Protein backbone atom coordinates (compact mmCIF):
# COMPACT_ATOMS: atom_id res chain seq x y z
CA UNK A 1 0.00 0.00 0.00
CA UNK A 2 1.41 3.34 -1.02
CA UNK A 3 0.72 6.53 0.85
CA UNK A 4 1.52 10.12 -0.05
CA UNK A 5 1.89 12.42 2.94
CA UNK A 6 1.55 16.12 2.14
CA UNK A 7 2.48 18.18 5.18
CA UNK A 8 4.61 21.31 5.43
CA UNK A 9 5.91 20.72 8.95
CA UNK A 10 8.98 18.54 8.52
CA UNK A 11 8.96 17.20 12.08
CA UNK A 12 5.36 16.10 11.87
CA UNK A 13 5.89 14.72 8.37
CA UNK A 14 8.73 12.51 9.56
CA UNK A 15 6.81 11.34 12.58
CA UNK A 16 3.80 10.34 10.48
CA UNK A 17 6.07 8.69 7.92
CA UNK A 18 7.94 6.70 10.58
CA UNK A 19 4.71 5.59 12.17
CA UNK A 20 3.08 4.47 8.95
CA UNK A 21 6.20 2.70 7.71
CA UNK A 22 6.17 0.60 10.86
CA UNK A 23 2.61 -0.30 9.95
CA UNK A 24 3.95 -1.64 6.66
CA UNK A 25 2.94 1.18 4.35
CA UNK A 26 5.23 2.58 1.68
CA UNK A 27 5.36 6.33 2.21
CA UNK A 28 6.29 9.25 0.03
CA UNK A 29 6.28 12.82 1.18
CA UNK A 30 5.77 16.32 -0.14
CA UNK A 31 6.29 19.50 1.82
CA UNK A 32 4.71 22.07 -0.46
CA UNK A 33 2.06 22.50 -3.09
CA UNK A 34 4.36 22.25 -6.15
CA UNK A 35 6.17 19.08 -5.18
CA UNK A 36 2.89 17.48 -4.13
CA UNK A 37 1.38 18.49 -7.47
CA UNK A 38 4.26 16.84 -9.34
CA UNK A 39 3.97 13.60 -7.42
CA UNK A 40 0.26 13.41 -8.03
CA UNK A 41 0.80 13.63 -11.78
CA UNK A 42 3.60 11.06 -11.88
CA UNK A 43 2.66 8.37 -9.38
CA UNK A 44 -0.40 6.54 -8.22
CA UNK A 45 -1.14 6.26 -4.51
CA UNK A 46 -3.63 4.26 -2.52
CA UNK A 47 -4.02 6.99 0.07
CA UNK A 48 -3.10 10.66 0.19
CA UNK A 49 -2.89 12.52 3.50
CA UNK A 50 -3.36 16.20 2.70
CA UNK A 51 -2.71 19.19 4.93
CA UNK A 52 -5.01 22.03 3.86
CA UNK A 53 -2.64 24.91 4.54
CA UNK A 54 0.42 24.48 2.37
CA UNK A 55 3.09 26.84 1.11
CA UNK A 56 2.30 27.65 -2.50
CA UNK A 57 -1.36 26.69 -2.58
CA UNK A 58 -4.34 25.13 -0.90
CA UNK A 59 -4.67 21.45 -0.12
CA UNK A 60 -8.25 21.68 -1.32
CA UNK A 61 -7.02 22.41 -4.87
CA UNK A 62 -4.73 19.39 -4.70
CA UNK A 63 -7.68 17.23 -3.72
CA UNK A 64 -9.66 18.44 -6.73
CA UNK A 65 -6.79 17.57 -9.06
CA UNK A 66 -6.25 14.22 -7.42
CA UNK A 67 -9.91 13.38 -7.90
CA UNK A 68 -9.59 14.02 -11.63
CA UNK A 69 -6.37 12.10 -12.20
CA UNK A 70 -6.76 9.18 -9.80
CA UNK A 71 -10.32 8.97 -8.58
CA UNK A 72 -9.61 5.74 -6.72
CA UNK A 73 -7.06 7.28 -4.36
CA UNK A 74 -8.38 7.56 -0.82
CA UNK A 75 -8.01 11.06 0.62
CA UNK A 76 -7.64 12.05 4.24
CA UNK A 77 -7.56 15.74 5.10
CA UNK A 78 -5.40 16.97 7.96
CA UNK A 79 -6.09 20.48 9.15
CA UNK A 80 -5.10 22.77 11.96
CA UNK A 81 -8.37 24.58 11.51
CA UNK A 82 -11.25 22.76 13.03
CA UNK A 83 -13.49 24.68 10.73
CA UNK A 84 -16.71 23.22 9.60
CA UNK A 85 -16.54 25.02 6.26
CA UNK A 86 -13.21 23.45 5.40
CA UNK A 87 -14.51 20.10 6.50
CA UNK A 88 -17.65 20.30 4.42
CA UNK A 89 -15.82 21.61 1.34
CA UNK A 90 -13.20 18.92 1.75
CA UNK A 91 -15.75 16.14 2.00
CA UNK A 92 -17.83 17.68 -0.80
CA UNK A 93 -15.01 17.62 -3.30
CA UNK A 94 -14.35 13.97 -2.56
CA UNK A 95 -12.14 13.59 0.51
CA UNK A 96 -12.90 10.43 2.48
CA UNK A 97 -12.22 11.71 5.97
CA UNK A 98 -11.10 14.74 7.91
CA UNK A 99 -8.88 14.84 10.98
CA UNK A 100 -8.00 17.87 13.06
CA UNK A 101 -4.70 18.72 14.67
CA UNK A 102 -3.58 17.84 17.24
CA UNK A 103 -4.42 14.20 16.54
CA UNK A 104 -3.10 10.91 17.86
CA UNK A 105 -1.08 8.91 15.37
CA UNK A 106 -3.10 5.85 16.37
CA UNK A 107 -6.24 7.75 15.40
CA UNK A 108 -4.74 8.68 12.03
CA UNK A 109 -3.76 5.06 11.50
CA UNK A 110 -7.22 3.80 12.33
CA UNK A 111 -8.79 6.35 9.95
CA UNK A 112 -6.39 5.37 7.14
CA UNK A 113 -7.26 1.72 7.56
CA UNK A 114 -10.94 2.42 7.57
CA UNK A 115 -10.60 4.49 4.35
CA UNK A 116 -8.60 1.67 2.79
CA UNK A 117 -11.24 -0.88 3.78
CA UNK A 118 -13.98 1.16 2.21
CA UNK A 119 -12.05 1.96 -0.97
CA UNK A 120 -10.04 -1.15 -1.70
CA UNK A 121 -12.38 -3.86 -0.52
CA UNK A 122 -15.70 -2.26 -1.29
CA UNK A 123 -16.26 -1.67 2.37
CA UNK A 124 -16.68 -5.30 3.33
CA UNK A 125 -13.48 -7.12 4.00
CA UNK A 126 -13.34 -9.35 6.97
CA UNK A 127 -10.89 -8.10 9.57
CA UNK A 128 -9.19 -11.14 11.03
CA UNK A 129 -6.90 -11.32 14.00
CA UNK A 130 -6.18 -14.92 14.85
CA UNK A 131 -9.49 -16.29 16.14
CA UNK A 132 -11.21 -12.90 16.10
CA UNK A 133 -13.07 -12.06 12.90
CA UNK A 134 -14.93 -8.82 12.31
CA UNK A 135 -17.45 -8.15 9.55
CA UNK A 136 -17.47 -4.33 9.23
CA UNK A 137 -20.42 -4.54 6.87
CA UNK A 138 -22.88 -5.56 9.56
CA UNK A 139 -20.67 -4.89 12.57
CA UNK A 140 -20.68 -8.45 13.77
CA UNK A 141 -17.76 -10.02 15.61
CA UNK A 142 -17.01 -13.71 15.76
CA UNK A 143 -14.58 -15.49 18.04
CA UNK A 144 -14.03 -19.14 17.13
CA UNK A 145 -17.14 -18.77 14.96
CA UNK A 146 -19.30 -17.74 17.91
CA UNK A 147 -20.95 -14.35 17.54
CA UNK A 148 -20.03 -11.86 20.28
CA UNK A 149 -22.68 -9.47 21.51
CA UNK A 150 -20.66 -6.26 21.77
CA UNK A 151 -21.95 -2.83 22.58
CA UNK A 152 -21.25 -0.06 20.07
CA UNK A 153 -18.39 1.29 22.13
CA UNK A 154 -16.86 -2.13 22.65
CA UNK A 155 -17.03 -2.76 18.92
CA UNK A 156 -15.35 0.58 18.14
CA UNK A 157 -12.73 -0.19 20.74
CA UNK A 158 -11.96 -3.57 19.20
CA UNK A 159 -11.61 -2.09 15.70
CA UNK A 160 -9.33 0.61 17.07
CA UNK A 161 -7.20 -1.99 18.85
CA UNK A 162 -6.84 -4.22 15.82
CA UNK A 163 -6.02 -1.30 13.53
CA UNK A 164 -3.24 -0.41 15.96
CA UNK A 165 -2.20 -3.88 17.01
CA UNK A 166 1.15 -4.28 18.75
CA UNK A 167 1.08 -0.62 19.73
CA UNK A 168 0.68 0.96 23.11
CA UNK A 169 -2.49 2.98 22.94
CA UNK A 170 -2.70 5.74 25.53
CA UNK A 171 -5.87 6.18 27.57
CA UNK A 172 -6.20 9.67 26.11
CA UNK A 173 -6.18 8.45 22.52
CA UNK A 174 -8.70 5.71 23.32
CA UNK A 175 -11.00 8.19 25.08
CA UNK A 176 -10.83 10.60 22.17
CA UNK A 177 -11.46 7.87 19.68
CA UNK A 178 -14.54 6.64 21.50
CA UNK A 179 -16.06 9.92 22.66
CA UNK A 180 -14.63 12.54 20.34
CA UNK A 181 -12.48 15.40 21.48
CA UNK A 182 -15.25 17.55 22.90
CA UNK A 183 -15.74 15.42 25.94
CA UNK A 184 -14.18 16.91 29.04
CA UNK A 185 -13.51 13.97 31.32
CA UNK A 186 -9.87 14.71 31.95
CA UNK A 187 -9.64 13.19 35.40
CA UNK A 188 -11.62 10.05 34.86
CA UNK A 189 -10.36 7.28 32.67
CA UNK A 190 -11.93 4.52 34.77
CA UNK A 191 -14.65 4.09 32.22
CA UNK A 192 -12.11 3.00 29.58
CA UNK A 193 -10.94 0.33 31.98
CA UNK A 194 -14.52 -0.88 32.38
CA UNK A 195 -15.00 -1.13 28.62
CA UNK A 196 -11.75 -2.94 28.16
CA UNK A 197 -12.56 -5.38 30.92
CA UNK A 198 -15.95 -6.12 29.39
CA UNK A 199 -14.36 -6.67 26.00
CA UNK A 200 -11.79 -9.02 27.54
CA UNK A 201 -14.46 -11.03 29.32
CA UNK A 202 -16.59 -11.36 26.20
CA UNK A 203 -13.69 -12.54 24.04
CA UNK A 204 -12.41 -15.02 26.60
CA UNK A 205 -15.98 -16.17 27.23
CA UNK A 206 -15.94 -17.60 23.70
CA UNK A 207 -12.61 -19.27 24.23
CA UNK A 208 -10.56 -16.44 22.75
CA UNK A 209 -7.19 -15.36 24.08
CA UNK A 210 -6.67 -12.26 26.16
CA UNK A 211 -4.80 -10.05 23.75
CA UNK A 212 -5.12 -6.85 25.75
CA UNK A 213 -2.10 -5.99 27.85
CA UNK A 214 -2.38 -3.30 30.48
CA UNK A 215 0.43 -0.81 30.87
CA UNK A 216 -0.30 0.65 34.23
CA UNK A 217 -0.97 4.40 34.11
CA UNK A 218 -0.21 4.56 30.39
CA UNK A 219 -2.66 2.59 28.37
CA UNK A 220 -3.21 -0.71 26.64
CA UNK A 221 -1.70 -2.83 23.91
CA UNK A 222 -3.49 -5.33 21.71
CA UNK A 223 -0.97 -7.96 20.83
CA UNK A 224 -0.44 -11.68 20.39
CA UNK A 225 3.24 -11.66 21.07
Amino acid sequence: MKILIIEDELDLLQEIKGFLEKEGFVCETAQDYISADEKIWVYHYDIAIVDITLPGGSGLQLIEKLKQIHPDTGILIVSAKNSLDDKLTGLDIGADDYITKPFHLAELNSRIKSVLRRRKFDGAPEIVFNEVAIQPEDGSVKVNNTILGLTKKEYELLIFFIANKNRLLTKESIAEHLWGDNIDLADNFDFIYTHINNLRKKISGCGGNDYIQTFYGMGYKFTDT
Partner: protein
Amino acid sequence: MKLLNKINIRYLLFSLTLLILLGLAFNFVLFYIISEELDEKLLHIQKRVTAQIINENFIPVIKPYIEVVEVANMQEQVFFSDTIIENLQEKEGEEFRQLTSIKKINGKTYKIIVRESKLESDELFESIALIIFLAFIVLVLILFIVNSQIAKSVWLPFYNNLKLVKKFSLNDLSPLRLKPTNIKEFNELNNVIFSLTEKVISDYKSVKQFSENASHEIQTPLTIIRAKLESLINGNGLNIEQLEKVKSIYSSVHRLSKLNKSLLLLTKIENRQFSDVEKISISKVVKEKLSEFKELISLKNLQLETNLNEDILKVMSPLLADLLVNNLISNSINHNKEKGNIKINIKGRQLIISNSGDSPLSNPENIFERFYKENQTSKSVGLGLAIVKKICDTYNIKISYSFIENLNYFTLDF
Protein backbone atom coordinates in the same frame (compact mmCIF):
# COMPACT_ATOMS: atom_id res chain seq x y z
CA MET B 1 -32.63 62.88 35.74
CA LYS B 2 -33.33 63.64 32.12
CA LEU B 3 -31.60 66.67 30.72
CA LEU B 4 -34.89 68.14 29.52
CA ASN B 5 -36.47 67.74 32.94
CA LYS B 6 -33.47 69.22 34.59
CA ILE B 7 -33.57 72.23 32.30
CA ASN B 8 -37.32 72.58 32.80
CA ILE B 9 -37.09 72.38 36.55
CA ARG B 10 -34.32 74.96 36.61
CA TYR B 11 -36.35 77.12 34.34
CA LEU B 12 -39.44 76.79 36.50
CA LEU B 13 -37.56 77.52 39.70
CA PHE B 14 -35.97 80.55 38.14
CA SER B 15 -39.29 81.84 36.82
CA LEU B 16 -40.94 81.29 40.18
CA THR B 17 -38.27 83.21 42.05
CA LEU B 18 -38.47 85.97 39.49
CA LEU B 19 -42.24 85.97 39.75
CA ILE B 20 -42.13 86.32 43.53
CA LEU B 21 -39.54 89.08 43.45
CA LEU B 22 -41.29 90.96 40.68
CA GLY B 23 -44.61 90.44 42.43
CA LEU B 24 -43.28 91.92 45.66
CA ALA B 25 -41.75 94.88 43.86
CA PHE B 26 -44.88 95.41 41.86
CA ASN B 27 -46.99 95.15 44.97
CA PHE B 28 -44.98 97.81 46.66
CA VAL B 29 -45.06 100.15 43.70
CA LEU B 30 -48.75 99.67 43.13
CA PHE B 31 -49.50 100.21 46.80
CA TYR B 32 -47.45 103.38 46.80
CA ILE B 33 -49.11 104.72 43.66
CA ILE B 34 -52.61 104.03 44.95
CA SER B 35 -51.86 105.65 48.36
CA GLU B 36 -50.41 108.70 46.62
CA GLU B 37 -53.47 108.92 44.48
CA LEU B 38 -55.72 108.72 47.56
CA ASP B 39 -53.76 111.41 49.39
CA GLU B 40 -53.88 113.72 46.38
CA LYS B 41 -57.59 113.26 46.18
CA LEU B 42 -57.98 114.13 49.87
CA LEU B 43 -55.85 117.27 49.41
CA HIS B 44 -57.98 118.28 46.50
CA ILE B 45 -61.20 117.85 48.50
CA GLN B 46 -59.71 119.72 51.40
CA LYS B 47 -58.86 122.65 49.07
CA ARG B 48 -62.36 122.73 47.75
CA VAL B 49 -63.85 122.69 51.29
CA THR B 50 -61.50 125.50 52.28
CA ALA B 51 -62.46 127.46 49.17
CA GLN B 52 -66.14 127.00 49.99
CA ILE B 53 -65.65 128.29 53.52
CA ILE B 54 -63.71 131.29 52.27
CA ASN B 55 -65.95 132.18 49.37
CA GLU B 56 -69.41 131.23 50.55
CA ASN B 57 -68.86 131.10 54.30
CA PHE B 58 -70.62 127.77 54.14
CA ILE B 59 -69.39 124.93 56.25
CA PRO B 60 -70.08 121.65 54.55
CA VAL B 61 -70.34 118.49 56.62
CA ILE B 62 -70.86 115.02 55.19
CA LYS B 63 -70.16 112.50 57.87
CA PRO B 64 -67.85 110.72 57.94
CA TYR B 65 -66.30 112.09 54.73
CA ILE B 66 -66.07 115.76 55.58
CA GLU B 67 -66.06 117.18 59.06
CA VAL B 68 -65.36 120.81 59.93
CA VAL B 69 -65.19 122.06 63.52
CA GLU B 70 -64.27 125.42 64.92
CA VAL B 71 -61.45 125.11 67.40
CA ALA B 72 -59.45 127.38 69.72
CA ASN B 73 -56.55 129.22 68.27
CA MET B 74 -53.98 126.81 67.06
CA GLN B 75 -50.95 126.64 64.83
CA GLU B 76 -51.86 125.94 61.22
CA GLN B 77 -50.94 122.39 60.18
CA VAL B 78 -51.79 119.57 57.74
CA PHE B 79 -51.27 115.86 58.29
CA PHE B 80 -52.39 112.49 56.99
CA SER B 81 -53.39 109.56 59.14
CA ASP B 82 -55.26 106.25 59.05
CA THR B 83 -58.28 105.71 61.21
CA ILE B 84 -61.06 103.23 61.78
CA ILE B 85 -64.59 104.48 62.03
CA GLU B 86 -67.57 102.45 63.24
CA ASN B 87 -70.14 101.98 60.57
CA LEU B 88 -73.49 102.27 62.28
CA GLN B 89 -75.34 100.02 59.92
CA GLU B 90 -72.87 97.23 59.69
CA LYS B 91 -71.42 97.67 63.16
CA GLU B 92 -68.05 97.10 61.81
CA GLY B 93 -64.99 99.20 61.68
CA GLU B 94 -64.13 100.59 58.29
CA GLU B 95 -60.68 101.74 57.45
CA PHE B 96 -60.38 105.34 56.35
CA ARG B 97 -57.54 107.57 55.24
CA GLN B 98 -57.96 111.02 56.68
CA LEU B 99 -56.42 114.39 56.12
CA THR B 100 -56.58 116.64 59.14
CA SER B 101 -55.81 120.29 58.59
CA ILE B 102 -55.97 123.25 60.96
CA LYS B 103 -56.66 126.41 59.01
CA LYS B 104 -57.27 130.02 59.90
CA ILE B 105 -60.02 131.35 57.71
CA ASN B 106 -61.47 134.84 58.16
CA GLY B 107 -59.96 135.11 61.62
CA LYS B 108 -61.46 131.87 62.79
CA THR B 109 -59.60 128.62 63.29
CA TYR B 110 -61.15 125.53 61.71
CA LYS B 111 -60.20 121.93 62.00
CA ILE B 112 -61.07 120.39 58.65
CA ILE B 113 -61.02 116.55 58.43
CA VAL B 114 -61.45 114.99 55.03
CA ARG B 115 -61.80 111.23 54.85
CA GLU B 116 -61.88 108.66 52.12
CA SER B 117 -62.66 104.98 52.60
CA LYS B 118 -59.71 102.74 51.88
CA LEU B 119 -62.05 99.93 50.94
CA GLU B 120 -62.28 101.02 47.34
CA SER B 121 -58.60 101.56 46.88
CA ASP B 122 -57.92 98.24 48.53
CA GLU B 123 -60.26 96.57 46.12
CA LEU B 124 -58.62 98.32 43.23
CA PHE B 125 -55.23 97.31 44.46
CA GLU B 126 -56.30 93.73 44.82
CA SER B 127 -57.82 93.41 41.38
CA ILE B 128 -54.90 95.08 39.66
CA ALA B 129 -52.46 92.83 41.53
CA LEU B 130 -54.50 89.74 40.64
CA ILE B 131 -54.66 90.60 36.94
CA ILE B 132 -50.95 91.18 36.79
CA PHE B 133 -50.16 88.05 38.77
CA LEU B 134 -52.33 85.92 36.50
CA ALA B 135 -50.77 87.44 33.44
CA PHE B 136 -47.37 86.58 34.82
CA ILE B 137 -48.31 82.97 35.46
CA VAL B 138 -49.81 82.55 32.02
CA LEU B 139 -46.70 84.04 30.50
CA VAL B 140 -44.42 81.73 32.44
CA LEU B 141 -46.53 78.70 31.55
CA ILE B 142 -46.56 79.56 27.87
CA LEU B 143 -42.83 80.14 27.89
CA PHE B 144 -42.34 76.86 29.72
CA ILE B 145 -44.39 74.89 27.20
CA VAL B 146 -42.80 76.55 24.20
CA ASN B 147 -39.38 75.97 25.69
CA SER B 148 -40.07 72.31 26.30
CA GLN B 149 -41.32 71.83 22.78
CA ILE B 150 -38.31 73.54 21.28
CA ALA B 151 -35.96 71.56 23.49
CA LYS B 152 -37.70 68.35 22.53
CA SER B 153 -37.33 68.93 18.83
CA VAL B 154 -33.77 70.15 19.23
CA TRP B 155 -32.78 67.10 21.28
CA LEU B 156 -34.71 64.62 19.12
CA PRO B 157 -31.73 63.66 16.91
CA PHE B 158 -29.70 63.22 20.06
CA TYR B 159 -32.19 60.73 21.51
CA ASN B 160 -32.51 58.90 18.19
CA ASN B 161 -28.78 58.50 18.00
CA LEU B 162 -28.64 57.46 21.63
CA LYS B 163 -30.95 54.58 20.74
CA LEU B 164 -28.54 53.54 17.99
CA VAL B 165 -25.58 53.74 20.34
CA LYS B 166 -27.40 51.54 22.86
CA LYS B 167 -27.91 48.89 20.19
CA PHE B 168 -24.23 48.89 19.30
CA SER B 169 -22.58 45.51 19.59
CA LEU B 170 -19.02 44.56 18.78
CA ASN B 171 -20.29 41.49 17.02
CA ASP B 172 -21.88 43.56 14.26
CA LEU B 173 -18.37 44.53 13.21
CA SER B 174 -19.48 47.82 11.68
CA PRO B 175 -18.81 51.23 13.19
CA LEU B 176 -21.74 53.36 14.29
CA ARG B 177 -22.94 55.66 11.57
CA LEU B 178 -25.29 58.08 13.30
CA LYS B 179 -27.89 60.20 11.55
CA PRO B 180 -26.52 63.63 10.67
CA THR B 181 -28.29 66.63 12.17
CA ASN B 182 -28.09 70.36 11.54
CA ILE B 183 -26.70 70.96 15.01
CA LYS B 184 -22.97 71.37 14.99
CA GLU B 185 -22.31 69.96 18.46
CA PHE B 186 -24.34 66.83 17.78
CA ASN B 187 -22.56 66.26 14.50
CA GLU B 188 -19.24 66.57 16.22
CA LEU B 189 -20.36 64.02 18.80
CA ASN B 190 -21.51 61.70 16.01
CA ASN B 191 -18.18 61.94 14.28
CA VAL B 192 -16.33 61.22 17.49
CA ILE B 193 -18.53 58.20 18.17
CA PHE B 194 -18.02 56.97 14.62
CA SER B 195 -14.25 57.07 14.81
CA LEU B 196 -14.28 55.69 18.33
CA THR B 197 -16.37 52.66 17.38
CA GLU B 198 -14.31 52.20 14.24
CA LYS B 199 -11.18 52.04 16.36
CA VAL B 200 -12.77 49.73 18.93
CA ILE B 201 -13.95 47.35 16.23
CA SER B 202 -10.63 47.22 14.46
CA ASP B 203 -8.87 46.56 17.77
CA TYR B 204 -11.42 43.90 18.64
CA LYS B 205 -10.99 42.28 15.24
CA SER B 206 -7.24 42.19 15.50
CA VAL B 207 -7.31 40.79 19.03
CA LYS B 208 -9.73 38.10 17.92
CA GLN B 209 -7.70 37.38 14.83
CA PHE B 210 -4.62 37.13 16.97
CA SER B 211 -6.09 34.69 19.45
CA GLU B 212 -7.54 32.57 16.67
CA ASN B 213 -4.28 32.52 14.76
CA ALA B 214 -2.31 31.78 17.90
CA SER B 215 -4.59 28.87 18.72
CA HIS B 216 -4.25 27.50 15.20
CA GLU B 217 -0.52 27.88 15.17
CA ILE B 218 -0.28 26.00 18.46
CA GLN B 219 -2.06 22.97 16.98
CA THR B 220 0.81 21.84 14.75
CA PRO B 221 3.60 21.90 17.34
CA LEU B 222 1.20 20.16 19.74
CA THR B 223 0.67 17.41 17.16
CA ILE B 224 4.42 17.04 16.74
CA ILE B 225 5.06 16.86 20.49
CA ARG B 226 2.29 14.35 20.88
CA ALA B 227 3.48 12.19 17.97
CA LYS B 228 7.04 12.18 19.28
CA LEU B 229 5.90 11.28 22.77
CA GLU B 230 3.76 8.46 21.40
CA SER B 231 6.71 7.05 19.54
CA LEU B 232 8.83 7.37 22.70
CA ILE B 233 6.20 5.48 24.67
CA ASN B 234 6.04 2.80 22.00
CA GLY B 235 9.81 2.44 21.80
CA ASN B 236 11.68 0.18 24.16
CA GLY B 237 14.53 2.45 25.13
CA LEU B 238 13.05 4.03 28.25
CA ASN B 239 13.35 2.87 31.83
CA ILE B 240 10.43 3.11 34.23
CA GLU B 241 11.46 6.47 35.66
CA GLN B 242 11.84 8.04 32.22
CA LEU B 243 8.57 6.49 31.12
CA GLU B 244 6.82 8.08 34.12
CA LYS B 245 8.13 11.48 33.07
CA VAL B 246 7.12 10.99 29.46
CA LYS B 247 3.71 9.93 30.65
CA SER B 248 3.33 13.09 32.68
CA ILE B 249 4.46 15.25 29.73
CA TYR B 250 2.01 13.37 27.56
CA SER B 251 -0.96 14.05 29.80
CA SER B 252 0.01 17.71 30.10
CA VAL B 253 0.12 17.97 26.33
CA HIS B 254 -3.26 16.30 26.26
CA ARG B 255 -4.65 18.93 28.61
CA LEU B 256 -3.03 21.71 26.65
CA SER B 257 -4.52 20.53 23.39
CA LYS B 258 -7.95 20.20 24.97
CA LEU B 259 -7.65 23.68 26.38
CA ASN B 260 -6.62 25.04 23.02
CA LYS B 261 -9.47 23.32 21.23
CA SER B 262 -11.98 24.65 23.75
CA LEU B 263 -10.65 28.19 23.45
CA LEU B 264 -10.84 27.97 19.67
CA LEU B 265 -14.36 26.72 19.97
CA LEU B 266 -15.32 29.63 22.22
CA THR B 267 -13.81 32.09 19.77
CA LYS B 268 -15.69 30.49 16.92
CA ILE B 269 -18.99 30.62 18.75
CA GLU B 270 -18.33 34.27 19.54
CA ASN B 271 -17.51 34.93 15.90
CA ARG B 272 -20.73 33.20 14.95
CA GLN B 273 -18.96 30.84 12.63
CA PHE B 274 -21.59 28.17 13.13
CA SER B 275 -24.07 29.60 10.69
CA ASP B 276 -25.62 26.39 9.40
CA VAL B 277 -28.84 26.13 11.35
CA GLU B 278 -31.71 23.71 11.28
CA LYS B 279 -34.68 22.87 13.44
CA ILE B 280 -33.33 20.79 16.30
CA SER B 281 -35.39 18.54 18.54
CA ILE B 282 -33.79 19.07 21.95
CA SER B 283 -35.28 15.89 23.42
CA LYS B 284 -33.76 13.89 20.56
CA VAL B 285 -30.34 15.39 21.22
CA VAL B 286 -30.67 14.62 24.94
CA LYS B 287 -31.62 11.01 24.20
CA GLU B 288 -28.68 10.59 21.81
CA LYS B 289 -26.26 12.03 24.33
CA LEU B 290 -27.64 9.91 27.15
CA SER B 291 -27.05 6.77 25.12
CA GLU B 292 -23.44 7.90 24.61
CA PHE B 293 -23.01 8.51 28.32
CA LYS B 294 -24.89 5.36 29.33
CA GLU B 295 -21.84 3.38 30.37
CA LEU B 296 -20.33 6.27 32.24
CA ILE B 297 -23.52 6.88 34.20
CA SER B 298 -23.75 3.24 35.24
CA LEU B 299 -20.04 3.16 36.06
CA LYS B 300 -20.48 5.93 38.59
CA ASN B 301 -23.63 4.23 39.91
CA LEU B 302 -25.70 7.27 39.12
CA GLN B 303 -29.48 7.16 39.14
CA LEU B 304 -30.88 8.64 35.94
CA GLU B 305 -34.42 10.01 35.80
CA THR B 306 -35.74 11.52 32.62
CA ASN B 307 -38.98 13.06 31.56
CA LEU B 308 -38.69 13.79 27.87
CA ASN B 309 -42.29 13.37 26.76
CA GLU B 310 -42.48 16.99 25.77
CA ASP B 311 -40.11 18.40 23.19
CA ILE B 312 -38.50 21.74 22.43
CA LEU B 313 -37.84 22.67 18.83
CA LYS B 314 -35.14 25.25 18.34
CA VAL B 315 -33.53 26.57 15.19
CA MET B 316 -29.82 26.35 15.88
CA SER B 317 -26.58 24.82 14.70
CA PRO B 318 -26.77 21.03 15.15
CA LEU B 319 -23.14 21.01 16.26
CA LEU B 320 -23.76 23.60 18.96
CA ALA B 321 -26.96 21.89 20.12
CA ASP B 322 -24.94 18.72 20.48
CA LEU B 323 -22.18 20.53 22.39
CA LEU B 324 -24.66 22.31 24.64
CA VAL B 325 -26.35 19.12 25.79
CA ASN B 326 -23.04 17.25 25.85
CA ASN B 327 -21.37 19.71 28.19
CA LEU B 328 -24.38 19.96 30.49
CA ILE B 329 -24.71 16.20 30.86
CA SER B 330 -20.98 15.59 31.24
CA ASN B 331 -20.93 18.37 33.84
CA SER B 332 -23.71 16.66 35.76
CA ILE B 333 -21.79 13.38 35.64
CA ASN B 334 -18.39 14.85 36.54
CA HIS B 335 -19.63 16.89 39.47
CA ASN B 336 -21.86 14.23 40.92
CA LYS B 337 -21.29 12.11 43.96
CA GLU B 338 -21.18 8.36 44.23
CA LYS B 339 -24.69 6.89 43.78
CA GLY B 340 -26.05 10.37 43.13
CA ASN B 341 -28.93 11.45 40.91
CA ILE B 342 -29.25 12.99 37.49
CA LYS B 343 -32.65 14.30 36.47
CA ILE B 344 -33.42 15.65 33.03
CA ASN B 345 -36.83 17.17 32.36
CA ILE B 346 -38.37 19.04 29.51
CA LYS B 347 -41.35 21.14 30.50
CA GLY B 348 -42.86 23.71 28.19
CA ARG B 349 -39.93 25.67 26.80
CA GLN B 350 -37.67 24.65 29.67
CA LEU B 351 -34.91 22.08 29.84
CA ILE B 352 -33.97 21.34 33.45
CA ILE B 353 -30.93 19.28 34.30
CA SER B 354 -30.14 18.57 37.92
CA ASN B 355 -27.52 16.53 39.72
CA SER B 356 -26.70 15.67 43.31
CA GLY B 357 -24.17 17.75 45.15
CA ASP B 358 -23.04 18.08 48.73
CA SER B 359 -23.02 21.80 49.23
CA PRO B 360 -23.89 24.94 47.32
CA LEU B 361 -21.11 26.57 45.31
CA SER B 362 -19.13 29.23 47.09
CA ASN B 363 -19.33 31.53 44.05
CA PRO B 364 -22.40 30.51 42.07
CA GLU B 365 -22.34 33.77 40.11
CA ASN B 366 -19.03 32.75 38.55
CA ILE B 367 -20.09 29.32 37.45
CA PHE B 368 -20.24 30.28 33.77
CA GLU B 369 -16.94 32.14 33.80
CA ARG B 370 -13.99 30.86 31.81
CA PHE B 371 -11.56 28.77 33.85
CA TYR B 372 -13.81 28.89 36.90
CA LYS B 373 -13.25 25.86 39.06
CA GLU B 374 -15.04 25.25 42.31
CA ASN B 375 -12.38 22.73 43.18
CA GLN B 376 -8.91 23.91 42.25
CA THR B 377 -7.45 20.41 42.26
CA SER B 378 -9.85 19.29 39.55
CA LYS B 379 -8.10 18.43 36.32
CA SER B 380 -10.99 19.60 34.20
CA VAL B 381 -10.19 22.50 31.94
CA GLY B 382 -12.95 24.69 33.29
CA LEU B 383 -14.35 25.76 29.94
CA GLY B 384 -17.31 23.41 29.57
CA LEU B 385 -19.89 25.68 31.17
CA ALA B 386 -18.35 28.79 29.61
CA ILE B 387 -19.04 27.16 26.25
CA VAL B 388 -22.58 26.34 27.37
CA LYS B 389 -23.14 29.97 28.34
CA LYS B 390 -21.72 31.24 25.08
CA ILE B 391 -24.01 28.96 23.07
CA CYS B 392 -27.00 30.09 25.14
CA ASP B 393 -26.10 33.73 24.55
CA THR B 394 -25.83 33.12 20.83
CA TYR B 395 -29.35 31.75 20.60
CA ASN B 396 -30.98 33.89 23.31
CA ILE B 397 -31.51 30.92 25.57
CA LYS B 398 -31.81 31.98 29.22
CA ILE B 399 -29.71 29.80 31.47
CA SER B 400 -29.70 29.91 35.25
CA TYR B 401 -28.08 27.93 38.02
CA SER B 402 -29.48 27.23 41.46
CA PHE B 403 -28.84 24.91 44.38
CA ILE B 404 -31.94 23.57 46.10
CA GLU B 405 -32.05 20.69 48.61
CA ASN B 406 -28.68 19.20 47.68
CA LEU B 407 -29.37 19.38 43.97
CA ASN B 408 -27.59 21.56 41.44
CA TYR B 409 -30.12 22.84 38.93
CA PHE B 410 -29.41 24.16 35.47
CA THR B 411 -32.50 25.63 33.90
CA LEU B 412 -32.53 26.57 30.23
CA ASP B 413 -35.34 28.75 28.93
CA PHE B 414 -35.60 28.34 25.18
